[in-house]
């Protein structure tokens, strides 16, 4: 018997990991709800409007991209465009080589995860060090992040202490405070030695060309205080129309992502440092990255480009909580990943066409989304696309018999009556693969076929 890939991964998950992911995501979701509903008169309206703003941007990128490019140039920023992941990485390498740079400090950016920038630079003899604590741990472990905002939600302190010891960061000590201090002491000298600081961007204002970066640890600020060259890798969908809109989005981002009123460091960058300021980049580059986004824009799933990467949909998702982020085999896990990851595969869509099926379509992801993305609808569209492209779907129960019955009323009625037999059969022993897969993980409820029809028939007529 075969399960779907994501079910298989979940079934083999270590109990420790499952507990860590489940508790972490549940806590995150509960704190978020409390914060939003305690303080705003109408948080639901807030996210609907934010969703409309982003949808407007997505559907008018042909206007906003040239506008933002002109503003950035006027601010003294060198603007690059990268159609693919390879082009984005080459652009970074080109900038470093032109400066004679060999050392980069990196703040957390999901786009650079997509392009696997750190690996690429290391292969070309550059040092590219992750500075976000979680990302740093992922890097020294040769692991992958499993959550958009909490990259090591799948690890416990003992695993971290072990890898610190292995990497020469002190004798085994699993106290989270000691772990953090050791990373602080190690990394601060790395920032000061580095030539280039690389960041992403949370928002870019088309009106002013202002780039907004948020972090809690202060690592992106350190990158921009210690190095002389700033490179920002930015997905083309990260634009908001005006500075005015930043008030709205900043109010939503931290509350949705980590249940904070505001992230500790919220930085507004509109170019290289001021001439009078002794610290910070004298040269600034922005690389706008497509890497599949224009394909998403052309598809009927373009709404997913509204996403502001807060991770709220991961935290609330019953499938994510059970399966963990790595089960999605992608940079973007959870409900947003189930939509975005297969789309970003472009022509290799079939390889991840199973992800949109990893959902009960309960709709919780849509309800918490700060930009109100109709994720369940998008999942259905992708399931439909997989069906139309005849992508094989191993582990999915065959629906042929059901389709036959559902199209013939007489057969349907007969089966409703006949189904009662199921209550008297040892179903666990039946050699039907779909049934066995079901019973391996759950108990089959008693057959109640026909009750709804009877109720429908007998209910009092309403005028």
């Amino acid at each position: 018997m075969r399960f779907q890939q994501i079910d298989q991964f979940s079934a083999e998950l270590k109990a420790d990991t499952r507990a860590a992911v489940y508790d972490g995501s549940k806590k995150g979701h509960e704190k978020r709800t409390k914060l939003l509903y305690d303080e705003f008169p109408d948080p639901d309206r807030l996210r609907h409007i934010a969703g409309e703003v982003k949808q407007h941007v997505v559907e008018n990128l042909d206007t906003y991209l040239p506008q933002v490019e002109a503003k950035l140039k006027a601010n003294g920023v060198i603007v690059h465009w990268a159609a693919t992941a390879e082009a984005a990485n080459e652009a970074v390498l080109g900038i470093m080589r032109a400066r004679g740079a060999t050392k980069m400090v990196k703040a957390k950016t999901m786009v650079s995860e997509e392009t696997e920038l750190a690996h690429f630079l290391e292969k070309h003899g550059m040092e590219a060090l992750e500075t976000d604590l979680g990302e740093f741990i992922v890097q020294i472990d040769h692991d992958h992040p499993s959550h958009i905002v909490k990259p090591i939600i799948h690890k416990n302190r003992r695993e971290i202490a072990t890898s610190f010891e292995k990497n020469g960061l002190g004798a085994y000590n699993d106290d989270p405070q000691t772990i953090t201090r050791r990373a602080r002491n190690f990394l601060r000298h790395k920032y000061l030695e580095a030539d280039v600081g690389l960041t992403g961007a949370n928002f870019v204002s088309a009106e002013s060309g202002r780039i907004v970066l948020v972090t809690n640890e202060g690592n992106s600020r350190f990158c921009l205080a210690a190095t002389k060259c700033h490179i920002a890798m930015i997905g083309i969908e990260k634009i908001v129309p005006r500075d005015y809109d930043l008030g709205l989005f900043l109010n939503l981002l931290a509350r949705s992502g980590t249940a904070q009123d505001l992230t500790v460091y919220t930085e507004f960058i509109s170019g290289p440092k001021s001439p009078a300021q002794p610290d910070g980049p004298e040269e600034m580059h922005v690389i706008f990255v497509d890497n599949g986004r224009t394909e998403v824009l052309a598809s009927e799933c373009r709404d997913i480009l509204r996403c502001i990467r807060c991770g709220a949909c991961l935290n609330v998702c019953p499938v994510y909580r059970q399966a963990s982020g790595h089960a999605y085999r992608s940079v973007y896990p959870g409900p947003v990943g189930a939509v975005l990851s297969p789309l970003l595969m472009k022509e290799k869509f079939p390889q991840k066409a199973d992800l949109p099926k990893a959902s009960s379509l309960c709709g919780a992801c849509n309800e918490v989304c700060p930009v109100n993305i109709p994720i369940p609808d998008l999942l259905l569209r992708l399931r439909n696309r997989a069906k139309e492209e005849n992508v094989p779907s191993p582990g999915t129960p065959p629906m042929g018999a059901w389709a036959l019955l559902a199209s013939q009323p007489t057969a349907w009625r007969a089966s409703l009556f006949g189904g009662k037999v199921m209550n008297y059969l040892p179903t666990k022993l039946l050699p039907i693969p779909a049934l066995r897969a079901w019973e391996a993980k759950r108990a089959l409820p008693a057959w109640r076929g026909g009750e709804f029809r009877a109720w429908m028939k007998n209910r009092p007529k309403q005028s």
Partner: protein
Amino acid sequence: MDEKPAQAILTMPSSADREAIFSRVRGALAPLHERAPMPDYTTELAVLRQMMGNRDAFTIFSERLVRVNGIALTEIAALVARLREGKWLQGYCDPVLWPMLAPHFGADFTVETTYDRKRVDDYAFGITRAAGAIAETGTIILSDATTSRRLGALTPWVHVAVVERAKIYSDLPQAVAALGSDSNVIWVTGPSKTADVEGILIEGVHGPGVQIALVV
């Protein structure tokens, strides 16, 4: 200086990818009969209005700063006492501020008005000017124009931001409206922190572990 133009040429981006992206964007959007309109909204929606009431911005700022584990002080003497209590006796101070503060600091302190990045671990505290503050979030606003050194406000364990009482904005939209033309503005809301290890909150990751606002 002669090398500068050559460097600029080397880093000039090529335009093939730009054209490819722009043409794909236009192609993707061409079939849309209607584009989603920009919604009309006021930022009042995103303001924690019920919190403000009749209270002044300073009271709310202090309250919210405490909520994010920051410290709000109004007396220089209290600041000196707090630094002494934490045994933070060596530090950096913005040269513009030092004449005002110096008379209050005792001989047990070593305060420098220049910052040497080679001695990053020597500074236990850094005192710099803030461009303003935000009441509803307990946020301190730093800008390139008012911060004497970005590193001086970031690397010491304790950061003291000197905030003028008249420059406390009540909410985020107001502070956004006041961003101005500075090429770098950063809002700091409490000490640097992480919850990456098992969701446990630890303060003082890459930036300060103690954030003080001295409101004058």
